[in-house]
């Protein structure tokens, strides 16, 4: 399985590795979202504006998530995330995710290790590669 991402210019001029995905909203439609590939994140978390767009209700009590900048409140939400595979088909991730409620907590939704651990994640700026690989795909490190 190969899921391709790309390097994207963000609002601060930084170029970051992202994967485009679709998230199931409360009305049954799918919303497109850019996810930062964040191997340092324990969990996949939606930014506050994405939570508003999804219209999802919290599925439990608020949870504190911590980062370099301190702690911020989030709410658990149950939904699905779809990513596109190299052959055009879709793979979905169903379950519990989190969403920040404070807009200043997170600029961009992040794809954390509760999904990334299912893959080998390649984030290669010099070669302009961002991808998640698994199953029949694999990578090789070579000395040239």
């Amino acid at each position, binding site marked *: 399985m190969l899921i391709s991402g790309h390097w*994207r*210019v963000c*609002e*601060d*001029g*930084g170029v970051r590795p992202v994967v*485009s995905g*679709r998230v199931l909203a409360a009305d049954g439609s*799918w919303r*497109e979202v*850019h996810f*930062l590939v*964040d191997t*340092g*994140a*324990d*969990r*996949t*978390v939606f*930014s*506050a*504006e*994405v939570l*508003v*767009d999804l219209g999802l209700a919290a599925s*439990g009590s608020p*949870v*504190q*998530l*911590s*980062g*370099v*900048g*301190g*702690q*911020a409140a989030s709410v*658990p939400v149950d939904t699905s995330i*779809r990513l*596109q595979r190299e052959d*055009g*088909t*879709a*793979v*979905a*991730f*169903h*379950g*519990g*995710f*989190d969403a*920040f409620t404070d*807009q*200043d*907590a*997170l*600029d961009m939704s*992040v794809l954390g290790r*509760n*999904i990334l651990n*299912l893959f080998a994640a390649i984030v290669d700026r010099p070669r302009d590669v961002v991808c998640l690989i698994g199953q029949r795909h694999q990578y090789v490190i070579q000395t040239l």
Partner: protein
Amino acid sequence: MIRQIFAKPSEGGSTPRREVVMVEEQLSPEELAAFHAQGERFERNSDWLDAHASEVYAQHRGKYICVAACELFVADTPLEAIALARAAHPEDDGRLLRYIPKEKRICIYAH
């Protein structure tokens, strides 16, 4: 970095196990076509924002922006931005919604 903080059992907390299940979906040809079309619309809007990033970010700090059909909509709340985009381009399900922080800052994720 994002790390979940668990409350101690003595404080009434518990350790939630929130599993994520991966499923390889079998979409019908129609569903797959819609899936790809939505993705293409989103990427077009994303490319438009990339091409206009410096001016959009400089002019609309502290605002929510929504890009639909490669047109920019700006508002004070995400729902307002979405409503503007929907009214102008109801056909575009690949809209891109973003908040532009008031101040440019160096990001060490998560927050």
